[in-house]
C-alpha cells in the first residue's frame, strides 16, 4: 500500500479535466443516436437517470480510494476486503469492458472521420484499425499519458459540445425531439439509461492514478464529484440541443455520426468541421487514456497472480507492452466486427455490474452517508435488470456471449491460471 498523503503532480484542475475528459471523451459521440432510438423525447431523462448511478458510484469510488489510499479501483477495494477471487474475476470482466470501450471509441473515430470525407465503409475500418495501431505505438514508446495534451483536448471538446448544445437550445422546438417518429412513454427513460450507461464509465480511470494526484484526500472528492455533475449537465443539454437541430429520426438513422449531422444541420459547415475535429480528438484521447490505464491495470493484476504473468512484461520504456498490444488488437477487431448498439450495450452491462460492486463495498466499508451508495445500488440494480432483459429479447447473442465469458471468468479462471502457472514452472525446471 502506498502512502498518498502528499501524492503526485495532478492538481485540482487536472483531476477535474481528466474526470470530465474520461467520460465525455467518446461517450456522447456514440451514445446519442442509441439513446434517442430507445427513449426518444425522454433521452435527456435517460442521461439524468444514468447520471444518478454515475455520481453515487463516483462518491463510492472516491471515498474508497481515500480510505484505502491506493491506485487500482475496484480490483484493489475487493482485495482490501479479502475477496481476492472476486477481485480477480472482476478485473478480467473490467478488462473486457475496457476492450469494448476502446472498440467503441475506435468505431466512433472511424465513422466521424469517414463521414467528413464522404467515403465508403472500407475507410471506416481502416481508420478504426489505424487509430488503435497509432495509440498502441504511442503507448509502447512511453507517451501514453500526456496529461497536458489530454487537458487541452478535453477543453476543446467541451467548448465544441457547449456551442452545439447551447445553439440547439436557442432554437427550441419540442417537436424536433420526436420528429419523424413515434413519441415514447416516460417508461422508456430508464431503458435508455441502461443502453448508454457506458458513456459515464470514464471517471473511474482516475482511480487508477490515485498515486499521481496531489493531496488526493483533499482534492479528489470535490474534483471528481463536480466533474461528474458537470458531465451529467452537458449530456442533458446535448441530448436536447443536438436533437432539436437534427430531428429525432435523423439522429436515429445517422446514429454513428449523430452529433456531426446535428452540427451540420444547425451550424452549417463551420459547425460540422468543429464537431468532426472535436470528435476525432476526443475519441483518440479516450482510446489513448483507456488503453494506457487498462494495460496498467492488467499488468498490476498479473503481478498479483490473478492474470497470466505474460501480461506483466514491461519494455525498456517501462510500459506493459504485451498488455498494450493484446488489448489494442482485440479492440481493433471488435471495432470492425461489432455494431454500435451491441458494443454500447455490452460495455454498459459490464460497467453497471462493476459500479454495483463498488457501491456494495462502499455500503460495507463506509461509516457515513451510506444512503448514497445504497441509492446507486438500487437505481443501478433496476437499470441492470432492465438492460439484461433488453439484451435477452433484442440481442440474445451478445448476452449469451457475455454470459459465457462471465462463466469462464468465474469458474474457469482459477483452472486457466493454474494450468498456465504449472506449465511455466515446468519450463523453468
Amino acid at each position, binding site marked *: 500500500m502506498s502512502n498518498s498523503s502528499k501524492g503526485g503532480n495532478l492538481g485540482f484542475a487536472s483531476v477535474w479535466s481528466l474526470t470530465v475528459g474520461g467520460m465525455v471523451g467518446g461517450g456522447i459521440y456514440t451514445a446519442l443516436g442509441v439513446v434517442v*432510438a*430507445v*427513449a426518444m423525447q425522454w433521452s435527456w431523462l435517460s442521461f439524468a437517470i444514468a447520471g444518478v448511478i454515475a455520481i453515487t458510484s463516483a462518491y463510492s469510488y472516491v471515498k474508497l480510494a481515500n480510505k484505502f489510499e491506493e491506485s487500482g479501483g475496484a480490483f484493489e477495494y475487493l482485495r482490501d476486503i479479502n475477496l481476492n477471487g472476486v477481485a480477480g474475476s472482476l478485473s478480467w470482466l473490467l478488462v473486457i469492458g475496457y476492450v469494448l470501450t476502446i472498440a467503441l471509441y475506435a468505431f466512433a473515430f472511424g465513422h466521424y472521420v469517414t463521414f467528413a470525407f*464522404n467515403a465508403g465503409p472500407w475507410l471506416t475500418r481502416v481508420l478504426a484499425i489505424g487509430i488503435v495501431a497509432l495509440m498502441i505505438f504511442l503507448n509502447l514508446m512511453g507517451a501514453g499519458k500526456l496529461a497536458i495534451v489530454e487537458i487541452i483536448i478535453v477543453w476543446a471538446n467541451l*467548448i465544441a459540445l*457547449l*456551442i452545439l448544445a*447551447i*445553439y440547439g437550445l*436557442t432554437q427550441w*422546438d419540442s*417537436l*424536433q425531439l*420526436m*420528429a*419523424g*417518429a*413515434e*413519441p*415514447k412513454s416516460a417508461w*422508456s427513460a430508464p*431503458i*435508455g439509461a441502461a*443502453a448508454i450507461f457506458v458513456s459515464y464509465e470514464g471517471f473511474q480511470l482516475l482511480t487508477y492514478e490515485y498515486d499521481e494526484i496531489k493531496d488526493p484526500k483533499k482534492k479528489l472528492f470535490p474534483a471528481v464529484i463536480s466533474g461528474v455533475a458537470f458531465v451529467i449537465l452537458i449530456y442533458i443539454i446535448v441530448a436536447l440541443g443536438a436533437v432539436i437541430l437534427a*430531428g*429525432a*429520426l*435523423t439522429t*436515429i*438513422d445517422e446514429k454513428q455520426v449523430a452529433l456531426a*449531422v446535428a452540427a*451540420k444541420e*444547425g*451550424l*452549417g*459547415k*463551420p*459547425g460540422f468541421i468543429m464537431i468532426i475535429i472535436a470528435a476525432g480528438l476526443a475519441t483518440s484521447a479516450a482510446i489513448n487514456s483507456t488503453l494506457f490505464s487498462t494495460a496498467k491495470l492488467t499488468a498490476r493484476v498479473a503481478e498479483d497472480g490473478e492474470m497470466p504473468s505474460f501480461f506483466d512484461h514491461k519494455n525498456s520504456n517501462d510500459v506493459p507492452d504485451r498488455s498494450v498490444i493484446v488489448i489494442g488488437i482485440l479492440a481493433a477487431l471488435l471495432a470492425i466486427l461489432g455494431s454500435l448498439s451491441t458494443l454500447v450495450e455490452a460495455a454498459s452491462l459490464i460497467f453497471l455490474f462493476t459500479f454495483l460492486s463498488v457501491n456494495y463495498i462502499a455500503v460495507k466499508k463506509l461509516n457515513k452517508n451510506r444512503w448514497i451508495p445504497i441509492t446507486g445500488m438500487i437505481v443501478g440494480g433496476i437499470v441492470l435488470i*432492465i438492460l439484461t*432483459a*433488453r439484451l435477452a*429479447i*433484442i440481442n440474445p447473442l451478445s448476452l449469451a456471449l457475455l454470459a459465457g465469458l462471465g462463466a469462464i471468468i468465474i469458474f474457469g479462471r482459477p483452472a486457466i491460471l493454474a494450468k498456465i502457472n504449472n506449465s511455466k514452472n515446468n519450463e523453468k525446471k
Partner: protein
Amino acid sequence: MRRNNLIILLIALVTSFPFMNAQAQDHYAHFRLVNFLEAPTAELSVTNLENGQQKVIKMDYGESINYIKLTPQHYRFSLIIKNKKVLEKEFVMGAKGFYTLVIAGMLSDKIETNQQTTLFKLKKLLGGETKDDNNFLPQWYMLRDNYDGSTSAAYVRFVNINPSSTLLSLKKEESKLFEEIPYPHVTDIKKIKEGNHTYRVSKGDITVSEFKLTTTAGHIYTLVTGANLNNAKQLETIILENKAKYLLTP
C-alpha cells in the same frame, strides 16, 4: 476576467452561426405514402392532434402518392380496410422534414387494430426499434427523405417489404448494390453513377423484378419491392424519387 472573455467568445460564436448557415426553406413537414398492404383499397386518415383537422387518402395496392404538406405537429395515422381499423399510430411531423410512410404486410383472418406477436410487443416494451417481421402482420415504417447527399451524384436505397422469409438482392446492370436484404428492411442510402441503367431484384439467382431507371445527380431513388398480386412468381417495384436535402423544394 479570463472567464468573462471566454463567455463572451462563446456567445459571439453561437450567435454568429445562423448567419453562416442561411438556408431558405419553408417550415412545413412533407410526407408521402406507399401502400404495399396485401388488401383491398386502404383509407388512411391523418389527424392533427392539436386542431383536429383531418386529411383522408384512399389508395390501392402498389400505389404511392406525392408529398403532402403538413403543419409540424403530432398526428394520428389510422389505416382503415373494409371499415375496420387495421393500424393506428401517432407520428410527429417535424418542421422542414420530408418523410415516406410505407405500409406493408398481410391481413390476418380476424382484423384487429395493431396486431402484434408477443415477441414484437416485448421488443417494443424494451425499447427495440421493432423492425422485424411481426409474423408478416400489417406494419408501417417511416423513412427519412432529407438525405444530405452531394449534388454531383445520384443515390439509391432499397426497401424489401415482400412478406416472405426469402432474402432479396438488388443489382444495377451486373454490379451488386444490395445483397440478401431480409423482410422488412430499409437499406442505407448508396451513392451510384447517374444515367440510364437496368436494375434487377433477385431471389438468389432468379430475377423477380426488372426495370429501367434513369437517375439524375442530386436525386435519391427509393426502390420499394413488394409482392405482385397478379403474378406470384414476380415481385412489384415502385420507384420514388426526391431531391437531396439542399435541393428539396417545398
